């Protein structure tokens, strides 16, 4: 072979070398991994699934944790560290004043993040068939959990962005966008379902989930921090109650109370249970675990909203006089507060005022979502609404007597009594405002209210948040909440 030929061959060789390697162009990022790559292994799917729970925790322990408390009237704002003035905390100012605007409001991120989580579940649900590395049990468990998450988050969106279920007689008013599959940006323009349809979707997802669970937990961690057949039923009970589905609420809560193996906290250790710095109370049903930092310490916790550490380090929210006034003599829950005198600027003068910080969320508390007492109160309310007054009284009294109150015998005002008991027992656990809506009550905030408007009668357009402008602007199928 002469030299000329050699050169030609060399060139041809290089040509082939460069153009025959077909996967040369398939480049995969490192910390950023394509969907296909990430979901091609068991560990990858589990990472994605763990990421979903991480986002849920973040959502529920965000400023949302203050929502029903601040709007309902359980919050007193504490004086500023520097100028000792009492102002509405920036976390919740617009919502507290019923003054949100669609363009820019505090719960826009909550809306966006909710749909982010929903999208994450749908990405996985759509690929379930390709997860051949899971056995059947694991797959069923994964699907059940994902369906539960999907329904749970849609419910959480409905709580803030749609009027309560009983706002119209047949729940024909606007519900939320319910994504049963991933949406393609620029292609899909969904519209809001009615509230009745929203609940139908929720029920259908929950029913399927409950049928699939085999409680084969996929990730490490306490079982109350994941959705499983027990926690999902508890969630179902809460949703059913809020959706005025008294039968389901009664049935499912009954099932949980009877079969969970969890017992109510006792009177004697009620306070000490709440005072535990990290672990949840013994009657916990669902708690989302507080995130850790790389050293294993808790990096952020819901106690950021409520804790009291020292006369200079304390959170912006304490208990309002309205809620404190509900604890009568003998109620052990009067001891659920850290009482502190803090200098407060009142008309230019520094006066020590007493503030009551709840003991529920101190130190490194996780995000309590449901506990057994709530299920008793759910069952009580469902029974009361269904006319089973004696059963309702039993459950209500179980909570009352534990707190040191006398048992009620008169059921004539039982729904109101349940409402008040919920406010006392579940204070700071983010229920009050949602209860007010379910009961179609007016918002009346008296002591410690510093809102522009403290009292608003039911119904009101401003009892829901506006759909974010980003959604309205880009999608003509989306209808804005009335009044915004």
């Amino acid at each position: 072979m002469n030299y000329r030929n050699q050169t030609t061959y060399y060139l041809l060789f290089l040509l082939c070398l460069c153009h025959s390697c077909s996967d040369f162009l398939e480049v995969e990022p490192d910390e950023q991994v394509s969907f296909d790559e990430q979901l091609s292994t068991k560990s990858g799917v589990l990472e994605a699934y763990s990421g979903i729970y991480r986002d849920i925790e973040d959502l529920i322990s965000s400023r949302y944790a203050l929502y029903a408390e601040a709007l309902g009237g359980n919050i007193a704002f504490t004086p500023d560290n520097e100028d000792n003035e009492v102002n509405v905390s920036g976390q919740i100012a617009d919502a507290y004043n019923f003054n949100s605007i669609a363009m820019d409001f505090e719960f826009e991120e909550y809306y966006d993040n909710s749909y982010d989580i929903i999208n994450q579940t749908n990405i996985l649900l759509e690929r379930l068939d390709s997860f051949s590395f899971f056995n059947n049990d694991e797959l069923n468990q994964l699907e059940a959990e994902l369906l539960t998450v999907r329904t749970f988050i849609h419910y959480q969106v409905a709580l803030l962005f749609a009027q309560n279920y009983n706002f119209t007689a047949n729940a024909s008013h606007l519900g939320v966008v319910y994504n049963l599959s991933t949406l393609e940006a620029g292609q899909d323009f969904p519209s809001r379902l009615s509230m009745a349809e929203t609940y139908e979707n929720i029920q259908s997802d929950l029913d399927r989930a409950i049928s699939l669970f085999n409680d084969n937990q996929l990730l490490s961690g306490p079982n109350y921090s994941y959705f499983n057949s027990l926690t999902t039923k508890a969630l179902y009970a809460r949703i059913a109650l809020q959706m005025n589905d008294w039968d389901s609420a009664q049935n499912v809560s009954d099932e949980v109370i009877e079969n969970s193996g969890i017992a109510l906290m006792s009177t004697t250790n009620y306070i000490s249970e709440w005072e535990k710095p990290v672990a949840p109370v013994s009657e916990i049903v669902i708690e989302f675990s507080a995130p850790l930092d790389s050293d294993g310490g808790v990096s952020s916790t819901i106690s950021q909203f409520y804790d009291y550490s020292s006369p200079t380090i304390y959170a912006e929210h304490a208990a309002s006089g309205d809620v404190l006034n509900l604890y009568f003599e003998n109620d052990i829950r009067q001891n659920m507060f850290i009482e502190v005198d803090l200098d407060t600027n009142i008309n230019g003068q520094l006066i020590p005022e007493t503030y009551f910080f709840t003991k529920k969320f101190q130190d490194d508390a996780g995000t309590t979502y449901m506990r057994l007492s709530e299920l008793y109160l759910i069952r009580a309310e469902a029974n009361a609404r269904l006319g089973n007054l004696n059963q309702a009284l039993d459950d209500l009294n179980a909570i009352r007597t534990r707190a040191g109150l006398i048992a009620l015998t008169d059921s004539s005002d039982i729904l109101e009594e349940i409402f008040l008991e919920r406010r006392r027992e579940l204070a700071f656990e983010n229920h009050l405002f949602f209860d007010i809506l379910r009961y179609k009550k007016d918002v009346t905030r008296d002591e410690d209210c510093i809102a522009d408007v403290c009292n608003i009668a039911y119904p009101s357009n401003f009892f829901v948040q506006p759909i974010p402008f980003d959604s309205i602007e880009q999608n003509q199928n989306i209808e804005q909440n009335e009044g915004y």
Partner: protein
Amino acid sequence: MKFCFMFKSLVCIIFLLIGVFGSTQNQREISGLVLSAEDNLPLAGATIKIKGTGAGAVTDFDGKFKYLIKSPGPIKNMVIEVSYLGYIPKSLSLRDKSYFEIKLKEDVAALDEIVITSSYGTKKLKQEVVGSISTVTTDELVEEQVAVTFDELLEGQVAGVYLESNPRLGEEVSINIRGQGSLTPLSNNVVGTSTQPLIIVDGIILSEEVGIDGNNFFDAGTGALSENILNPLARVGVQDIESFNILKDAAAVGLYGADAANGVIIITTKSGRKGKLRFNAGVQSGISSPINQFQFLNGEQYQTVSNIYNANSGNFNSIEPWNGVDTNWFDLLNRAGIFSRFIFGANGGTERWRFRANATYQVNKESQVSNNYKKLNTTLSVDYNKDKFSASLRLSPSLAIKNDPNTLFNFAVDPTIPVFSDDGNFTPFASFGNPVAVAQQNISEAETFALLNSIKLDYQITDYLRATTLFGMDFSEKNEDNFFSGLNGSGQFNDGDLGRRVMRERNNFKWNWSANLAYNQTFNQKHYFDALLGVETRRELTDLSFARGDGYVILDSPQPISTADNQDYRFDTNETTGRSVFTQLNYDFKKTYFLLANFRVDQSSAFGDDNNTALNGGLGASWVISNEEFFTKYLNNPIDFLRMRISYGSTGNSRIGSYRALGLYTVDNDNDLDGYNGNNYANPSTAPNPNLGWERNNKFNLGLDINLLSKFQITAEIFRDDIKDLIVSRDVIPETGYSNVQINGSEMYNQGIEFSLQADWFRNENFRWRTNFNISKIENEVTDLVGLGSNNSTAERARSQRVGFATSTIWGFDFVGIDPATGRELYNVDGEIFDGAYVRQNFNATNWTPIGDSQPDFFGGMRNSIGYKNINLNIILSFASGQDGLVGRELIDNYRVLENRNISVNVFEDAWQQQGDIAQLPIISDSNPIISNSSKYLFDESHIKLRAINLSYDLPVDKVNVPFKSLSFFANATNVAYWYKNKSPEGKNGVAEYKNVYPEMRTISLGLNATF
């Protein structure tokens, strides 16, 4: 008979001799040596002609000649003409001399004649080039200018090329060839499609320093902890560059297909010359001083303004008399800087081998106290050729060190506070720190080691066929070390931590390999044909890492991050690959009609499977009218050369983030417990878009070249670039779970006119004067935007994407003045006048109107090169007109800064104080509405800039006894002055001061260059 013949012959010869030598015959043998004036090397093959006779001699290999002159007239009056291709011819009268040492000067214009048309080894004579290519040599641009990167030299010097300079040394300069290649990004952090030209140095495709797409940490954003993005062009030494070729139209850039949308700059570095080993050395040193310095209030004025502010804001307790302190923080942080540059090199070669080695070290001690920039560029080039084979190697290691701890240079704090407190320590300032302490105690260093390397092999297979292969490599390693000393406020944190150290590393490795076959043949001496076929592959790998440590025990010097109380580490990697096949065909008929076709197929890993292949191509034609018979038959035609060119073609822009089309998860799987219940986790970060494809840029160009009267070379061009399928980041409905997605969602065009002129007013031995002038006008309009959502930036950026407007439009509210009654701002919104507070409450981005345009209406530059004997004077100017800049409001009238900072001196006189004041600035209080994109902050930046003046003197080394082959002295002034259309008011700030709060530096230096 024999005798008779011999006789006749003899008679004939005699007659002949008589005829030749005539009456009185003079003769003289002359001899001599012809040398190149630049390097004193012999010129072989130079012609020596006796003027008016056509007779003469040619120099031999050693440059020597010998000739016997015979003349009937006196020889001493005769003149010889010495000429050599590529050199300025020289005439000498013989007088009484018989030995001549003649030095010829290189004719730069003549060397221009060869134009490099691509990095794949193609070149053409200037008159044969079909595409639009501008060529400039470093010589013309005066390499003695004080510059960190070569792009600075190009400012205003090439038609259609607009540079936005950056006064911060070593930081990015943006180069726009024929307008902006992509939409103006609406946010800082979105890693947009590259708007920068493809820059190729000796075949090495240079990498860009950009963030990682989709990663919201390594996003090259701005902020105290962000990466210091530097100009990657620093790795090319200005002194090593021979020429720039700027490829603009489809015929020129078509060979680069999907990378060519923004134009291509091909840089050729100097190579060694044949001849003995020679050394060159240069030294230059000078003083830099800040120009157009921002003026702040002095201590007394500050106190007055501050008191008015507090009175109007209801903080009556804060009103106090001036304490007599007047600290000029700005002066304390700015001083005269020092620039020095040292050059040493050698070159030489034989028939087969040639080499050149050079090292340039430059130090800029900036006029900002403690800030400096040091750079060492070294290069080695080796060329080899033997018979049909040639090879060349380029190796350029460089090291650049930038240190700029003086971050508060424009953060002039309260002038009534002394630098030192009574105890002799720095007065403490919370959070940002005492500016002087920050400049002295902190470290902000970025060290970049880079290696450019290319190897090229070339083999002439037959007379018609040549094979070339080239491997190019751009490797760099950047280490940043930022130290926020715990001794000042910048390193004292709310949680009690003292001291912070942030270290970043960026390792980049990019290589490209190409192989091509070139064929050329001429048929019937009329049909010339050449073709090129090649393949190329590219890969770029970027590793980024970040480490931060807060909280140290030892505070006065940076400690290892591993000893910090709080530590944070992050990493990411980015990889892009691509491959291409390209071809080019050229045909011409009688060097009069030229045709060109380009075609290229590109594939890139950046795009979805469905769209990862792009086909691009271009066609061009040119007609040299001056070669036509009908043209040449007019004898006194003043036109020497006339040509028309036309081209059309498509190019693409593949230089986007690497993974745009994929849906992406961001993964944390390092088992570090920060996931849910300590588990590893992943969350989606980028929406998938399998339909994402290449941006397309269709380029049309029409050009006319005229050379007149042997003096003027004129080029005029009109062009239009239609850019389609622009990749834009659009907001999506939140129900998708994403906030934005990249789509091919926009169209726009750039069109314009370019004109350039080169005039050689004088070009003879003693006096040379050349002027280069160019001017360009560019228009841009967004013609289509599809789908999805919001298209407005924040008010601070004042950008919006809207059909029917230039993408460079600045959007905002139209400020009409200060209400004399209230001192508040008034705005015109849709023809009605509103108070600023009302505007802020009730209007939003949808009410913005165009208030300006950041692209100039026209721009260009001029350079004059004047030589008289051994003295050369170069003057370089650039200009731009009609571009607007939106200035940050902090220093103008954001009075709230008065609580801890100083503000523009203008406030003292121009702010509203009492009813009836016709003021330019509003009432000094804390209740003014903040409207960042008010036309009040918009300034017309039209200006002329005197970029450089350089005066040099070449010592006639042959006349004085020095051991040098050449020696020249020079004085240089760089960044000499600006003339703005809008003058700054006397003693106050105007556009000149607002434009660059980090002041530009004027450097005046002296130096000398020698070869020996």
